[in-house]
């Protein structure tokens, strides 16, 4: 870092401000919600350096370097391990394939995990170092989203922390979401300041008339309204284009899914035929039970049919992650939302990181989440069957007193940052 002018600053005391638009933030949440495993992607945007000079009483100016990180949008990865392997080795070719010409706009990356500590995992740290080098961004940031829920799944929290891991101090940065704030409708004046001066009235009437058109409407208002109208028209028209593109994407996705199913069916048919041929040549007493000839894919089809109007539940761009519905078929066949079994109904749409630690890493608070009959989190897999038992609600009032003291507002007040890096939680949390 080159010193500037007479002021001396240190690399590690610069303040950082970071922001992300509500729409980008929501979009990351949306992609994460659609993912049944951890989800990750890149943050594109801009980093600006602003030097703030303050002059104190002693006339010695001190300057602070303000680093402003603006996240403009995100580039979601379609699946995990798309640019790195199990050892955390980053593949530059894959990286370029994902980013293409957006590579130069990368200022960071993000990861969404469920039920894990707010700390970078070992693999994430390794990946981060490599990305820093490959992308040539010395202060590459890492945005970690972690998702936790109460035992009865009535309340969920999405926590997010922005790290700048390449620094020694002040590694966590506040991420702000600029918004409308106050619409300030109170700023309208409903009365004028009383004034009896005739000169005042004359001058402001004569010269103020410039602002108004013949109907007594302020010209500025018409003008700004036109700007607004044009902008809204554009929003509307791009929205129409997006809608069309969503339908096109859905359609091609369905076609791809159908093809995949056909291929699997064809393969299965071929293996069945081969096996039958073999058995015909070498007859053996049947030791194995009657094989279930219904491939999980047909039940996937029926599940797809249930989830109209639009997309299949888990399309997935490539065959690698097993479809969410397929995984569930291993657990419980009656997970269809409209099945007759009421308690299992709530199981189906709960996306949960496959292989994610059902139990959080040990910490003093665990996930100690409030309310619900069993405050110990991490027993979700077992708990789910009981979740929707109506008797829970009747117990709720009396339960409050039974909650362990630490769980009272953990969900609301958050958890303390883990003091030591986690084990590689992402190994368990990732898709295979």
């Amino acid at each position, binding site marked *: 870092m080159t010193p500037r002018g007479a002021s001396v600053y240190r690399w590690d005391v610069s303040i950082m401000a970071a922001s992300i638009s509500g729409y980008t933030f929501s979009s990351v949440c949306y992609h994460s919600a659609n993912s049944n495993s951890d989800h990750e992607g890149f943050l594109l945007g801009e980093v600006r350096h602003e030097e703030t000079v303050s002059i104190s009483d002693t006339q010695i100016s001190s300057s602070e370097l303000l680093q402003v990180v603006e996240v403009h949008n995100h580039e979601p990865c379609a699946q995990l391990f798309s640019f790195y392997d199990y050892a955390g080795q980053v593949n530059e070719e894959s990286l370029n394939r994902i980013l293409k010409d957006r590579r130069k706009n990368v200022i960071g990356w993000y990861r969404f995990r469920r039920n894990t500590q707010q700390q970078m995992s070992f693999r994430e740290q390794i990946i981060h170092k490599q990305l820093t080098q490959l992308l040539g961004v010395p202060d590459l940031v890492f945005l970690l989203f972690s998702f936790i829920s109460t035992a009865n799944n009535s309340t969920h929290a999405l926590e997010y922390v922005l790290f700048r891991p390449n620094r020694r101090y002040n590694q966590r*940065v506040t991420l702000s979401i600029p918004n409308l704030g106050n619409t300030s409708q109170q700023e309208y004046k409903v009365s004028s300041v009383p004034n009896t001066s005739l000169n005042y009235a004359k001058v402001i009437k004569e010269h103020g008339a410039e602002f108004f058109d013949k109907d007594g409407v302020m010209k500025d208002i018409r003008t700004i309204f036109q700007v607004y109208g044009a902008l809204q028209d554009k929003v509307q028209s791009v929205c129409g284009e997006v809608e069309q593109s969503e339908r096109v994407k859905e359609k091609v996705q369905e076609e791809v899914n159908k093809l995949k199913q056909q291929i699997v069916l*064809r393969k299965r048919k071929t293996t069945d035929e081969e096996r039958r041929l073999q058995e015909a040549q070498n007859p053996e007493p049947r030791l194995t039970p009657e094989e279930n000839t219904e491939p999980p894919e047909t039940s996937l089809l029926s599940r797809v049919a249930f989830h109209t109007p639009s997309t299949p539940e888990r399309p997935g761009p490539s065959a690698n992650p097993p479809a969410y519905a397929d995984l569930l078929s291993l657990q419980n066949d009656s997970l269809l939302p409209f099945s007759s079994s009421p308690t299992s109904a709530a199981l189906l749409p709960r996306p949960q990181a496959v292989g994610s630690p059902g139990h959080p890493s040990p910490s003093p608070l665990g996930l100690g989440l409030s309310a619900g009959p069993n405050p110990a989190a991490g027993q979700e897999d077992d708990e789910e069957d009981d979740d929707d038992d109506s008797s829970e609600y009747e117990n709720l009032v009396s339960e409050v007193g039974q909650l362990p003291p630490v769980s009272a507002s953990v969900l609301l007040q958050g958890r303390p940052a883990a003091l030591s890096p986690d084990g590689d939680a992402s190994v368990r949390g990732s898709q295979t």
Partner: protein
Amino acid sequence: MAVSAVHLESDAFLVCMNHALSTEKEEVMGLCIGEVDTNRIVHIHSVIILRRSDKRKDRVEISPEQLSSAATESYRLADMTGRPMRVVGWYHSHPHITVWPSHVDVRTQAMYQMMDQGFVGLIFSCFIEDKNTKTGRVLYTCFQSVQAQKGSEYERIEIPIHVVPHEAIGKVCLESAVELPRILCQEEQDTYRKIHSLTHLDPITKIHNGSVFTKNLCSQMSAVSGPLLQWLEDRLEQNRQSVIELQLDKERLTQELATM
């Protein structure tokens, strides 16, 4: 229990989040459109952004016109999906405050439940930050109201809620999302119209008020319309890329199938 769980489609969830994050200075609200199945699960397919007709802190009211337009939206969604859709709940945001419903919220919810037992309430809490750990937080919860005994205070009961994957964004959700700038502008126009009708104001005050309107509309455009447009363009580009990749997948798979 009238409701066993709520399944919120992820594209409807997206619109709720957009709406909740649009302002940290006041609570926003909307209605949920969907259906209830035979297992008493409420499926929310879409949401409608509402105007706060009364922005007082202690009140949450929905005007008859809004309810009626919500009903119209339901019919549209019903037409598109071929299934009966209706208003099944409401949502609102709690910026900077706890996700749990206030007493007013619980009472309001109880009132809606009198018309419809299956009506559910969702709350999104956002703009929360733990200064110590620099952790930001967004929470959401689902609740109904229950009266322990006749005449006693209403209390909230928790309803499990799950966000259901929905890989493409539905038409109705997209249209709801782009309604926000329109609604904000409408609110501003209504306020200004009332001010403008005051005849006793001197020109300076009128100019001041006109400038306030201009300023507020500019805020809306830079804070909402602009980012919304950018997000839409990004999404369009993402979709186009996805379609290209999917087409390649399709070709590859078709070839594979042909050789089998």
